[in-house]
């Protein structure tokens, strides 16, 4: 039965500042069918907010990401940022993903744990030594994931000041020209870095991808550059925002970090719950287009129509999580979709988990009395929510 549809409603629902989940989502979850939404740019789309529907759309091959190239993609930013691997379907997707998946498995990441632990403790110690107050973002949350992804890829850490602004633009709603210029600069930077690695191969992921291109011809030169850019951006933006978001919530609602120092075994479960709880994005994941008619949440989505999934809403679906709006740091069976689901499930999830666990552990050990030293200043034009600066004392 077709559901009568009114005009699409304006989306995204969440405010850029803060970490609140808009109440509109719970309403959409309780209502019949799916809502039609209109983003600032591109086609109107169906919005999926329920957990079961989210897993259906993200995990079903009848929904295509590659179709974005043939459509005016619904989006929050005026320009379009090529999403590389994220804008492909199998078999292209499988080929590109296979090249990097093995570099980021749980087992490979566990071998990095001692190094990442030392890095996190070192940063926390430097912060402690220089005395309060400090900006948690600048002195800890950003340098940790940047250093880790730089070492893995083979990007000089000293170039952080260079690529930081370009990278931030990729996940912002800044003017189309500015974002396009940043992407050109980042791409030119990567081309140069790849040339250097061709001349001097090293034990890093850029070298590995160059081999896959030059020896095995498994990807094109353009794909090689895109893959490296994508990993550099995706490899630190979300993690750098989640660290201060997690700390903010723990200080705000959980009386600080002392309990983590006393009981570090609780850190992995706490990280999973924080991942579930934080609606990181202002909006939804990139749209998927139905390649045939598919019923989703009581609506017949027609072939050619786009569907957007809010993982933040799905993670607060009362049908799947008991007391979803309570931060329960020991929650069991916590199969959230913060890393997505299906073929595009975050390839960096094992690394992100490891970094988030070690970040909390290092802060809890070195500065258990960490506390706010002023108001959080939130990012304004970012699609990934989190503090611009967060002043802390100890």
């Amino acid at each position, binding site marked *: 039965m077709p559901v009568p549809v009114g005009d699409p409603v304006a989306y995204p629902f969440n405010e850029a500042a803060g970490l609140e989940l808009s109440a509109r989502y719970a309403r959409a979850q309780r209502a019949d069918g799916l809502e039609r939404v209109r983003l600032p740019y591109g086609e109107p789309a169906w919005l999926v907010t329920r957990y079961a529907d989210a*897993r259906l759309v*993200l*995990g*079903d*091959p009848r929904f295509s990401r590659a179709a974005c190239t043939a459509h005016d993609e619904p989006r929050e930013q005026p320009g379009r940022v090529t999403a590389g691997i994220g804008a492909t379907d*199998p078999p292209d997707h*499988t080929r590109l*993903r*296979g090249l990097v*998946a*093995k570099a*980021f*498995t*749980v*087992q490979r990441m566990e071998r990095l744990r001692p190094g990442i632990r030392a890095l996190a403790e070192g940063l926390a110690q430097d912060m402690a030594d220089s005395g309060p107050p400090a900006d948690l973002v600048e002195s800890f949350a950003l340098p940790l994931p940047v250093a880790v992804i730089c070492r893995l890829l083979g990007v000089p850490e000293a170039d952080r000041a260079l690529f930081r602004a370009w990278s931030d633009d990729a996940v912002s709603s800044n003017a189309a020209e500015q974002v396009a210029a940043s992407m050109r600069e980042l791409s030119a930077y990567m081309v140069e870095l790849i040339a250097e690695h061709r001349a001097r191969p090293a034990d890093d992921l850029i070298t590995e991808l160059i081999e896959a291109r030059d020896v095995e011809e498994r990807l094109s030169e353009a794909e090689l550059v895109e893959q490296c850019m994508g990993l550099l951006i995706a490899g630190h933006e979300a993690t750098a925002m989640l660290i201060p978001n997690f700390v903010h919530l723990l200080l705000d609602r959980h009386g600080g970090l002392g309990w983590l120092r006393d009981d570090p075994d609780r850190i992995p479960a706490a990280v999973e719950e924080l991942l579930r709880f934080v609606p990181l994005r202002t909006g939804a994941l990139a749209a998927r287009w139905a390649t045939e008619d598919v019923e989703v949440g009581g609506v017949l989505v027609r072939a050619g129509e786009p569907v957007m999934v809010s993982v933040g809403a799905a993670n607060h679906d009362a049908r799947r999580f008991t007391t979803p709006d309570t931060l329960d740091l020991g929650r069991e*069976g916590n*199969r959230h979709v913060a*890393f997505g*689901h*299906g*073929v595009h*499930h975050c*390839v960096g*999830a*094992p690394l992100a988990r490891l970094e988030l666990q070690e970040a909390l552990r290092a802060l809890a050990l070195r500065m258990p009395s960490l506390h706010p030293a002023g108001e959080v200043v939130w990012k304004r034009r970012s699609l990934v929510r989190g503090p611009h600066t967060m002043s802390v004392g100890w």
Partner: protein
Amino acid sequence: MRAVPVWRTTVDRDRCMGSGVCVALAASLFVLDDERSRAPVEFVAPDETVLDAADSCPARAITVTENGRVIGPRD
């Protein structure tokens, strides 16, 4: 008569983190059960997709063997 090679697929459910990658790649070979993957048919005719799934699994939870020899995930 030459024996037709048969592949055996197993999923280590303790390792599986329920990403849904394998199921989305090959719905006939993997199902999510209680939000974790399993291979409903253990023995299958050789099929590249099952190796792709093993390669793509972020938890390295999928193992493919041929006559007891591990052939996936590929390195």
